[in-house]
């Protein structure tokens, strides 16, 4: 498999060349174009994070219930995948590591990658963002999408991220929800609200823009549906 990400960062699209007898799993609706010899099927995925329950949990997490599987037969094929809205893509090599991904961040993965819905409980609730996170593990490549450009932070010590700007992080990092300010007064009125304070060692991926902020800015001026 050969993966290339084009038109970064604002209109990123993944161009994937699959060798014969290869497979790629993607979020339903992500396919933009493909060779006519590719086989497409829908899956609820078996095993870890698979089956009906896995699918339902993914739906709750803001991902689609079904995943599409693209498979080549005896010939090689080409596939283009893109998210719905403008933004950047990131390819992450799993190598047995575990990655926690903001629920809407998943785009595609190779077959050796396991998707599982992680529940962050109250921690997730208080972070002011979606409660759900996808726990991604296994071996292979996972493709993530984000609103804005994606920048990587090599955390060694402490790092603070506004909750709306997190795309994914390695589970070697631990995080706690805290105030950006020392005082409660500042935390409430400072507009940063609650932030995630990461500690430990590992990689963290952030998006330059906050989809909720942009949504509020534009949505507030639109008529109700």
């Amino acid at each position, binding site marked *: 498999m050969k993966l290339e990400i084009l038109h970064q*960062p*604002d209109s990123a699209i993944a161009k994937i060349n699959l060798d014969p007898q290869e497979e790629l799993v993607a979020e339903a609706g992500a396919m933009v174009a493909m060779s006519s010899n590719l086989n497409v099927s829908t899956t609820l995925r078996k095993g870890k994070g698979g089956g009906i329950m896995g699918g339902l949990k993914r739906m709750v997490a803001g991902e689609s219930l079904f995943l599409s599987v693209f498979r080549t037969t005896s010939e090689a094929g080409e596939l283009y995948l893109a998210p719905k809205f*403008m933004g*950047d893509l990131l390819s992450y090599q799993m190598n047995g590591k575990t990655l926690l991904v903001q629920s809407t961040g998943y785009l595609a993965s190779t077959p050796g990658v396991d998707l599982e819905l992680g529940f962050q409980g109250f921690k997730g609730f208080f972070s002011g963002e979606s409660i759900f996170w996808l726990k991604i593990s296994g071996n292979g490549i996972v493709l993530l999408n984000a609103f*804005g*450009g994606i*920048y990587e*932070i090599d955390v060694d*010590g*402490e*790092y*603070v*991220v*506004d909750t709306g*700007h997190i795309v994914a992080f390695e589970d070697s990092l631990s995080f706690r929800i805290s105030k*950006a*300010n*020392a*005082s409660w*007064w*500042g*935390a409430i*009125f*400072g*507009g*940063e609200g609650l932030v995630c*304070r*990461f*500690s430990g060692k590992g990689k963290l991926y*952030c*998006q*330059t*823009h*906050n989809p909720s*902020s*942009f949504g*509020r*800015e*534009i949505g507030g*001026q*639109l*008529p109700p*549906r």
Partner: protein
Amino acid sequence: MKYDVRYKPTFATVFVTLQPGEKIVAEAGAMASMDGNITVETQFSGGLIPALLKTYLGGESMFVNTFTNKSNKPQEVVLTQSTIGDITRIELNDRELCLQPGAYIAHAGNITLNVHWAGFASFFAGEGLFKLKVGGNGIVFIGAYGGLSKRQVKNDFIVDSGHLVAYDPSLKMNIKLAGGLLGSVTSGEGLVNRITGNGEIYMQSRSVSGLVSFLRPKV
């Protein structure tokens, strides 16, 4: 202090490196992420009454955050805006600049933000009754929806309402029909803003009101 604006023009974001003891002030909500050793303090933007004026008349947030590096190593803070678009850095050397609501992102140095009466002509030109004025010595970061273009106005220049981001305070705003009465309606340009005087302006290549009117019939 080191600044780097990355992901221009669509997702422009400011990566600021603060040396020990340095600080930068940003509007509430502008921080995307930062190193753990940066201290954040929230203040009313220039005191309670000026902050209220800025919010209700100048369209800016009531609070600003001061990011200070109190550690002994360089620390990074990443600042952005809620809309997608370009960000530019403007150096002020004892001069003033008027900003449109929402344009201000951050500043460093000895800079003050004030709300001024802009006048009815400005209001009818679609640019508001009040204007936010920044002045002093230092650096200001302004953001736009779309790309930012700077232009020197000599005598007069016409800008469609909603596309002006910042301008020299000596410039005057006047409402004007884009063409004749019929032409103005049929050309879709309607009322435009005629700027007279000499000074620089910053324009944005798209406008939020344009996006809203594009989306409105589709929702």
